[in-house]
């Protein structure tokens, strides 16, 4: 009788795939994976504890560093939570600016997701460089507006911090038109590649009921066939005024998650078009907001948005003083990992790497 045993392999914290410091303990039976256990916390900075000693406005730069790829949407989630709790209204122009910035952020996050998925597949950085070329153009827009490319610190409770500069809208329009053709080009270049199809179809399948039960949100959930987009469910901000669809894919494997990102980029470009056309004049920050956030009333609120990775939400508890009593950040990346074991059953090591790539993690968001 053959006695076989499983090997424990450590996909160690220093990971060549560029998701940051993350550790996976795999139990391998030859090539196939029997069991896996993620170990996280290498990037834990204690943002929740730090924010208990800062004022409400001082927390905004902390939220930038949560998911550093999409810092604008992190700011937006926090701003919405605090506005809900303190009952602050946001002026029209600020809402339009927020939508434009959030959708640009969605595009750059999805570009990075697609690029690095292809890097895991072994396409030797070429899709990464193409996607990052476009990302740089969007980051130029961000730098023009708020002075910083990645840590934007732009959306505060009550509006946005500064108004758009002079040349922003023409440049954004030009960039948006260019992005339409670029996303189309990326789709035609990458989606039908035979090697990609044979490696990604039916790999890492996530059924819809498992996804809902595991609290998975965002493109991962929609790629499994569940139509749930917080922009349409919660009607937050002014997304009701824009005409866009929520795409879904059926099977929930790696190819579907990749294609979901491409489809969402098409929709984001549509929203930016409509927002750039309809943006009104006006002020960008509610003057009463500064007073309200200095000492908001006692209470608690749960504010959530559809960030590019999933549902990012803040649970803010206030006890009447100037600091948040408790700030809880619900990380989309950590919860999207809940179903990793089900997705990876029976696959080989090479598939684990691309499944991890398709989940689109950012470690800073996972560990906070």
């Amino acid at each position, binding site marked *: 009788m053959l006695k076989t045993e499983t090997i424990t392999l450590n996909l160690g914290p220093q990971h060549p795939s560029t998701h940051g410091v993350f550790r996976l303990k795999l139990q391998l039976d030859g090539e196939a994976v029997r069991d896996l256990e993620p170990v*996280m916390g290498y990037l*834990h900075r204690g943002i929740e504890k730090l924010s208990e000693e800062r004022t409400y406005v001082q927390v905004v730069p902390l939220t930038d560093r949560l998911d550093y790829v999409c810092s604008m949407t992190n700011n937006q989630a926090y701003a919405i939570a605090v506005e809900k709790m303190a009952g602050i209204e946001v002026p029209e122009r600020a809402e339009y600016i927020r939508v434009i910035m959030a959708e640009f952020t969605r595009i750059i996050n999805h570009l990075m997701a697609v690029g690095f998925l292809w890097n895991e597949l072994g396409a030797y950085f070429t899709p990464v460089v193409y996607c990052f070329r476009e990302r740089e153009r969007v980051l130029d827009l961000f730098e023009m507006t708020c002075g910083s490319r990645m840590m934007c610190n732009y959306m505060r409770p009550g509006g946005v911090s500064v108004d758009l500069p002079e040349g922003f809208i023409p440049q954004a329009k030009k960039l948006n038109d260019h992005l339409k053709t670029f996303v189309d080009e990326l789709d035609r270049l990458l989606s039908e590649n035979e090697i990609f199809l044979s490696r990604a179809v039916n790999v890492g399948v996530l059924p819809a009921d498992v996804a809902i*039960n595991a*609290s998975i949100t965002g493109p991962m959930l929609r790629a499994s066939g569940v139509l749930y987009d917080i922009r349409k469910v919660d009607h937050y901000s002014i997304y009701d005024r824009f005409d866009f669809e929520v795409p879904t894919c059926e099977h929930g494997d790696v190819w579907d998650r990749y294609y979901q990102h491409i489809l969402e980029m098409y929709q984001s470009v549509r929203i930016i078009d409509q927002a750039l056309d309809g943006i009104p004049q006006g002020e960008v920050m509610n003057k009463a907001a500064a007073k309200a956030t200095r000492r908001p009333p006692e*209470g*608690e609120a*749960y504010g959530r948005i559809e960030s590019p990775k999933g549902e990012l939400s803040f649970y803010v*508890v206030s006890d009447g003083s100037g600091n948040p009593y408790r700030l*809880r950040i619900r990380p989309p990346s950590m919860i999207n990992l809940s179903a990793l074991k089900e997705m990876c059953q029976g696959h080989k090591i090479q598939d684990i790497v691309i499944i991890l790539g398709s989940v689109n993690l950012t470690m800073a968001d996972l*560990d906070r």
Partner: protein
Amino acid sequence: MTNDEILAKLREKYPKVVVDTPELIDFTVVVKSEALTEVATFLHDECRLDYLADVTAVDRPERFEVVYHLYSVKNQTPGPFVLKVYLEDKGNPKVASVTPIWRGANFQEREVYDLMGIAFEGHPNLKRILLWEGFPGHPLRKDFENRTFTFKELEPTRPKPPDW
């Protein structure tokens, strides 16, 4: 089903379980900690609240509060249904785990255990998730001193191979 209907059905089915419905911005229901599993099963199966968005805890001066934010994907309801549990015993807080009902609670309950020290009974793998096993204390508690820790004092607490 709206949140009020759910509360009405809950009161009908389990009369003594609801402790309080405080007037907060989100619809909140406080239940007894012993009845958590039954209430959670009821909410999941009969009221179709199939999406557990968030499990978290707040450290009040006199009690711990464990907060669950629930949504329904099938019905696409906008407002959260907030379920709270008050834990009066601050020395040894424990509550039943909802991981058998909502799988997504797995990592979140481990995080609450790690950072707040609340034990979840029935959790399949209750280990610390963001910090390591020997870390002194639970950081998010209000009585945890927020200071700079030196390498010399933390290094002996770290797990060494082969346990790491």
